């Protein structure tokens, strides 16, 4: 009986490297997906972006230089994909960054007329940053609060804080004024901190 070569039996160094990368891609995939979801705000679109990024990573595998970790390199590919998708969505008019300078009720509620905090909205300590970051619950609440954030606030916040773009770059991407970008980020941060504080410290379902 003719024996077909068993791919698993191939222990050449090249094959081992490929196997290792495949393992690492599937390990990092959930993290890529939650990153894409926070930016694109749609599960199916995020799935597509991650799939494209993974395929591109496999195709361009030889161009990985090793200067960063393999996972960081894959994340870089995903970031480009996300920006491409956002540009396309914007071109097609599928989403429009809000330019409105109107007051934001959710923020007005946090302050008195005089500009002081409302008593119940006064921020309290979340504890040491390192401990906060290592707390799983914090990230669950963070994600939940990002989901309920209005579209423009969430997208600008993600581009600034998760993608690490400068406000100047964000203005160019979204064709908004830089001052508008600062207003949006201020609102996003105030809403997020309030939501996280309620959801995390009190343990309320959000």
């Amino acid at each position, binding site marked *: 009986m003719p024996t077909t070569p068993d791919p698993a039996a191939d222990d050449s160094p090249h094959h081992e490297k490929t196997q290792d990368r495949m393992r690492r891609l599937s390990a990092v995939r959930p993290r890529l997906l939650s990153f894409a979801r926070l930016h694109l705000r749609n599960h199916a679109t995020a799935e597509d972006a991650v799939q494209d990024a993974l395929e591109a990573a496999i195709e361009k595998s030889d161009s990985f230089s090793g200067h960063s970790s393999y996972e960081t390199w*894959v994340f870089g590919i995903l970031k480009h994909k996300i920006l491409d998708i956002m540009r396309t969505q914007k071109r097609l008019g599928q989403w429009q960054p809000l330019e409105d300078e109107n007051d934001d009720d959710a923020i007005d509620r946090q302050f008195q007329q005089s500009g002081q905090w409302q008593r119940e909205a006064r921020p309290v300590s979340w504890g040491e940053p390192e401990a906060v*970051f290592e707390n799983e619950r914090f990230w669950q609440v963070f994600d939940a609060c990002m989901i309920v954030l209005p579209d423009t606030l969430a997208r600008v916040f993600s581009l600034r804080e998760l993608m690490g773009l400068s406000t100047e770059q964000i203005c160019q991407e979204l064709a908004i004024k830089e001052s508008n970008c600062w207003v949006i980020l201020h609102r996003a941060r105030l809403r997020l901190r309030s939501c996280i504080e309620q959801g995390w410290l009190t343990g309320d379902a959000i």
Partner: protein
Amino acid sequence: MIMCRRATELMSQRLDRPLRWPERLSLRFHLSMCGACYQCNRQFELLHRSGEGFDPDRKVRDPASTQ
């Protein structure tokens, strides 16, 4: 003397652009007097680092729990 609401604008913008010195001064003064704003500032700084949660080289975020 700036109020809390204005202070939160400055502490937010401080993360996106260099503040001018009068802004820096009034923010610093306000933060030294106001415990709530001091906490708010720490929270903004924490949110400013939230990208670290996705850093593949830091295992601070368990992806399984965010599905």
